[in-house]
């Protein structure tokens, strides 16, 4: 069976040398069909991220005074909370790993040539997932999150020309504040997931309807029917089954991993000590280590421009053959892609390894990191303490009811007012709250239409005539006419404060 004969080039009319076709899309052997299931793993992980993120959003509050409390509540008090958060935390890192593998696998299949949209989509997805990870890291607002935000701030600030304003735009203010959390929250919870869903939706629905399956994939689909030797195993093992099985295995591993290793959570950012050594999430360790070698403003360039260039080149890979590169090499896309992917892989792996090794080697760093880990462990052991929520204290505090604020009224209220009206409208006409009901203040009512002294007497006699609703009731029989006039005369003297 020769796959090269059956290949459907779609709308890309590209001649393809046979050996290359064999190397990439050629005869689907069993193990290759298994390698191709990275798509399913990525989709499963994306689904896990969306679901767990959605669940976390039921409790999380993006503000400097409640973010850490709500995350601690999820982590310590809620059933399954620690596991769900760990799934979300580790899942984001596994997602980066599997997306990278997916990219390598797509490259190996020559997708930059045969499936341009899928290739570009995968690179964009990798960038978005990295962005989601970077913004999400700040949200728990523990010491670790605070310092990682500081690192991001520093990188952006060091950019030439745009540094200062880019930093302010990122932070939402001239320094890290509760606005920064809101901003990172909006980016992490609305912007990146929306873009990710758009890319995935485009890949799943738009792309697949316009372009047929590549033959090799088709081969995996139909192994049972078209291959010569029809065995029981081959007849049931189509690609859908492989996809599900691989995704399940990865899910089970992730679930167990998340059960064993909860997501990190340290003391609140309010307790941040100056000597804290920040460490980024695993997917960013390589970048962090790189920045250590590049001083100052150059570091910002390397931190932003280097990953940007790598991603841009990967995105542009399908169009590279139209460039003069063709003059220097035979397969500019294949060569450039291979160089970039393998260099990235080597670079990322080396830097990550170097970072971990140097952290262990240097005694001072090791001691500090151990101390930070001990602090996190100690914090984790403390029971959850609910945060004190400030209630609208004015309504209930006796001081507010008892003493008039200066300027409310020149004279003290008539006795009849204090007896019949003060419970609802306040001792000095300032209004009050009774259980679920809020009663309106009387301050400044004389400025409104139909609130003359006579009108107020009329209201006391028959509030419904003035379209006032219960609980305001008639005092026609409870008050004497003199008392009504006395009350009305006093009420019109009440002035609005400020």
């Amino acid at each position, binding site marked *: 069976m020769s796959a090269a004969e059956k290949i459907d080039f779609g709308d890309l009319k590209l001649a393809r040398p046979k050996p290359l076709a064999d190397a990439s899309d050629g005869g689907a052997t069993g193990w290759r069909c298994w390698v191709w299931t990275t798509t399913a793993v990525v989709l*499963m992980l994306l689904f*896990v991220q969306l*679901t*767990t993120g959605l*669940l976390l959003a*039921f*409790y999380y509050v993006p503000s400097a005074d*409640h973010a850490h*409390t*709500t995350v*601690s*509540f999820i982590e310590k*008090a*809620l*059933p*399954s*909370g620690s*596991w*769900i958060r760990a799934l979300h935390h580790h899942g984001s890192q596994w997602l980066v790993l599997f997306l990278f593998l997916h990219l390598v696998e797509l490259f190996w299949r020559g997708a930059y040539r045969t499936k341009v949209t899928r290739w570009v989509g995968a690179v964009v997805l990798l960038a978005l997932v990295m962005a989601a990870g970077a913004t999400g890291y700040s949200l728990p607002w523990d010491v670790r999150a605070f310092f990682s935000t500081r690192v991001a701030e520093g990188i952006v600030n060091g950019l030439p020309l745009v540094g200062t304003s880019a930093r302010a735009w990122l932070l939402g203010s001239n320094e890290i504040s509760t606005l920064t959390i809101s901003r990172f929250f909006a980016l992490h919870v609305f912007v990146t997931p929306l873009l990710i869903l758009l890319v995935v939706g485009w890949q799943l629905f738009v792309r697949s309807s316009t372009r047929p399956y590549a033959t090799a994939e088709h081969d995996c689909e139909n192994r*049972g*029917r078209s291959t010569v030797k029809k065995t*029981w195993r081959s*007849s*049931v093992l*189509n690609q*859908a*089954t492989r996809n*599900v*099985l691989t*995704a*399940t295995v990865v*899910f089970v591993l992730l*679930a167990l991993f998340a059960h064993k290793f909860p997501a990190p959570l340290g003391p609140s950012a309010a307790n941040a000590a100056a000597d804290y050594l920040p460490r980024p999430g695993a997917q960013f360790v390589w970048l962090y280590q790189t920045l250590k070698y590049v001083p100052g403003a150059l570091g910002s360039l390397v931190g932003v421009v280097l990953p940007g260039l790598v991603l841009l080149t990967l995105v542009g890979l399908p169009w590279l053959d139209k460039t003069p590169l063709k003059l220097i090499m035979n397969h500019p896309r294949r060569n450039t892609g291979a160089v970039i992917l393998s260099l990235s892989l080597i670079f990322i792996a080396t830097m990550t390894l170097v970072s971990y090794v140097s952290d262990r080697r240097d005694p001072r760093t090791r001691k500090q990191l151990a101390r930070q880990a001990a602090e996190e462990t100690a914090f984790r052991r403390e029971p*959850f303490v*609910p*945060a*004190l*929520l*400030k*209630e609208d204290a004015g309504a*209930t*505090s*006796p001081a507010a009811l008892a003493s008039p604020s200066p300027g409310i009224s020149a004279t003290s209220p008539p006795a009849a007012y204090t007896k019949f009206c003060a*419970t*609802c409208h306040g001792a000095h006409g300032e209004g009050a709250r*009774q*259980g*679920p*009901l809020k009663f309106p203040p009387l301050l400044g009512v004389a400025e409104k239409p139909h609130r003359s002294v006579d009108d107020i007497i009329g209201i006391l006699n028959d509030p419904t005539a003035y379209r006032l609703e*219960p*609980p305001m*009731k008639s005092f026609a029989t409870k008050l004497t006419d003199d008392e009504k006039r006395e009350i009305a005369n006093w009420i019109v003297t009440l002035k609005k404060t400020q």
Partner: protein
Amino acid sequence: MWHNNSSGSAPDRSRRAFVLLLPLAAIGGMFATIATAAFRFLRPAVAASSEKWIDVASVAELSGNKPVLRKVVAEKVAGWARSLAEHSVYILPGKNNQVLSAVCPHEGCEVSWRDDENVFSCPCHDSNFAADGSRIYGPARRGLDPLPSRITDGKLQVQYLSFVNNTQERTPRG
């Protein structure tokens, strides 16, 4: 695809049906795992008044037959937040220092004691209650709610509870 393979023998088909169930079961298992965790995670919390005993008054200062108004500050915990709220209670020295919540059992306004008429009266809808808290007239469907109280070391202490509005029977909230 599966339906194209209809030519197989009977045991072959059942075997295939069984193996088809495997991926379905795997997907179902993943969903079920997450759904179980989600159910446990999202199950509504009970916003409970803490069962702390709060000092209201020292027994020595309570005398006479008139209800005594006192304020208590009670803590309430809802999920990750706790809040303090001030509530009014009436102590009935003439009724063995029973403590009544000042919350009207009709719509939750705060009743006040009218000394001249010897009744508790609600400002919102005019429910009236006798000096022992029993209902006299008005839209309220039961008398004022007594609160659990005890005397320790000469101090009258109370547990602040709130009750469901507008019912005849007295059901604590939460």
